[in-house]
């Protein structure tokens, strides 16, 4: 129960009563804050988390060696399993870089087939035994075992297993090409021997098979049996600098995309204009929200003009009346902020699902940071500013004007 003997208690009591009395206007105000704030927050959050999640989704590799071409295309194809392959490298190139001092790990990958649109990626099974896709985290099996390097066996990423309903022992025939097309099915039959646990990285969207499987797949070019699509690299110390010099500046056979994070950062930087557009949209929405709140508060307070006059006549000071208006606005703003968080979570959940389905990258939307709290507090302050104008107007208005004499 609110203590009405305290001024703050009285102000909140009257603010709550006012909110209930003018429920429609108050809810519209809170809804506009929720919508504007939620859209604003989710825009900021998604773009920020996308960058972080994409950086973290590089699967623990420092670099990618591939055919001569774009570094970004190489990374997208080899690590994010998107985009087309820029070409192939010879098996010797793979053997050479594997033995280069400073190269901690080197795993060849071969792409070129799919199963209902999900890529088959051929690699060395050692990847699943030794490689840490995140610091201290190796791939874990949900069920089954890792494929043998010489058998037609498949290890299925968690997202694919869920989407296609693949189980241990299931047999399937891959389709040719990176995109699913009817009538392109290979004759080779693969058996699912293992299901991977989710990692929140693009590897969840892949069906992993032995590299020999892709190389020797029926119908593939003979040259493919002696080539790889790319080599995934983990490097020691400053080995990246010497390798970059060797491959990118002096050589003309291959491209080294290193460091992965810097290449991605440069990509996101190039996309800065898009972020700018989104920010302008979200600020515009925020401004419209503010105007709606100010307008709602003004009309709501106009409706309450008589109430304020009554309060004054029974002995309320101007400051209490002003406090009631600000309290009312505060309640609307707080409800609006809670709504904004819900809107942000809803938009985030939908976006998370879309990005996960498209890229396999799981963006984090629940981790609130200090600047998110700052944005939420700012929304409350901005919402209250919307009511401040009405509060000052009521504060300055003459009591007698609102009390028409009856005789």
């Amino acid at each position, binding site marked *: 129960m609110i203590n*009405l*003997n305290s001024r703050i208690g*009285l102000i909140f*009591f*009257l603010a709550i*009563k*006012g909110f*209930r*009395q*003018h429920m429609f206007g108050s809810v519209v105000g809170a809804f506009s804050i929720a919508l504007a704030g939620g859209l604003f927050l989710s825009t900021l959050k998604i773009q920020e988390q996308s960058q972080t999640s994409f950086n973290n989704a590089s699967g623990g590799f420092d670099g990618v060696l591939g055919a001569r071409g774009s570094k970004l295309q190489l990374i997208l194809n080899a690590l994010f399993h998107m985009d087309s392959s820029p070409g192939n490298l010879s098996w010797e190139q793979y053997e050479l870089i594997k033995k280069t001092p400073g190269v901690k790990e080197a795993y060849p990958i071969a792409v070129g087939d799919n199963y209902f649109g999900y890529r088959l990626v051929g690699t060395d099974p050692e990847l699943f035994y030794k490689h840490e896709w995140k610091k201290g985290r190796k791939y874990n099996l949900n069920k089954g075992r890792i494929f043998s390097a010489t058998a037609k066996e498949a290890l299925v990423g968690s997202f694919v297993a869920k989407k296609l309903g693949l189980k241990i022992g299931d047999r399937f025939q891959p389709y040719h090409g990176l995109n699913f097309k009817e009538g392109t099915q290979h004759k080779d039959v693969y058996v699912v021997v293992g299901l991977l646990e989710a990692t929140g990285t693009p590897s969840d969207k892949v069906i992993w098979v032995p590299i020999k499987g892709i190389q020797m797949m029926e119908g593939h070019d003979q040259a493919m049996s002696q080539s790889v699509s790319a080599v995934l690299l983990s490097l020691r110390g400053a080995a990246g600098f010497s390798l970059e010099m060797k491959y990118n500046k002096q050589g003309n056979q291959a491209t080294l995309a290193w460091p992965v994070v810097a290449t991605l950062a440069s990509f996101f930087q190039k996309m800065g204009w898009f972020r700018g557009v989104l920010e302008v949209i979200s600020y515009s929405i925020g401004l419209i929200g503010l105007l709606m709140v100010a307008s709602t508060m003004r009309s709501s307070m106009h409706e309450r003009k*008589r*109430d304020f*006059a*009554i*309060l*004054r*006549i*029974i*002995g*309320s*000071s*101007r*400051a209490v009346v*002003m406090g009631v208006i600000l309290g009312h606005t505060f309640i609307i703003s707080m409800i609006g902020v809670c709504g904004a968080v819900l809107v942000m979570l809803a938009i985030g959940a939908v976006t998370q699902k879309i990005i996960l389905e498209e890229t396999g990258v799981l963006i984090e939307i629940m981790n609130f940071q200090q600047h998110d709290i700052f944005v939420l507090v700012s929304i409350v302050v901005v919402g209250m500013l919307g009511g401040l*104008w009405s509060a*000052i107007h009521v*504060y*300055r208005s003459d*009591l*007698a004007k609102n*009390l028409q*004499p*009856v*005789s």
Partner: protein
Amino acid sequence: MLNFIGICRAISLCHKIYHKVIFLSISIRGILIQIREQSKDEDVIKSTAIDNTKSFLEIKDLRKSYPLGTGNSHFVVDVKNFTLDPGSQLAIHGPSGAGKSTFLNLIAGIIKPDTGSIRIGNLEMTTLSEPERDLARAQDIGYVFQSFHLLQGCSALDNLLVAMAMNGKVDRKRARELLSLVGIKEKENSLPSELSIGQQQRVCLARALSNNPKLMLADEPTGNLDSANASRSIELLRSLCEQNNCTLLVVSHDEKIINRFEKSVDWKEISDVNNLND
């Protein structure tokens, strides 16, 4: 040419924004000063609360005018001498628009007079600051209105509690007793819109009594009631004021109501007649 017009508009807009910002900063500054003064004033008013002295309400040379369109002023209140003893009851009758309500608003400190003095107990209302007058209304003056002026978002009980809160003395038990006294205890949780006119009038009366006022002002208290309810209501008002030793000043244009008072005066005579309680 178009550019020139655009520049002119931009300058005009900047000028308007500048003035709005100045206005806002002055407003906020003024409010902060007033809030500071108010907290000082409240300390003062507690030591100058109304006492039931011999001549309880004393009004001298009170004048209030409103400007006319022609540039002249129209005096709606012009009272040379007006006194009431503690606990007395007086009715003022007169036609609508004569200035009776303005007279009550002047006494309650809702509006300030052009000249003159209004003394209630040992409080000189005309020299009090606005926050002091607010507090005086909360502590010592009850006001019953023709249109009741109840807070529409608050229940009957809440209307009384809010009035008590203005005086810093919220007492739920007493609020319920007052509602019981005016005969609507069972309606304590009803909103004004859920009450009949008569019931709203009773809530208004209970609210006016909630802070044990020493002066009760009633502006056409029965104006919205039918004849039977009006009679009951005025008797209730009179008896409650009598029980609480509260001075009652009623203004009405209804002859039937006026006739129920032992002492009454016509609004036209109020300017010239002194010592109405005699």
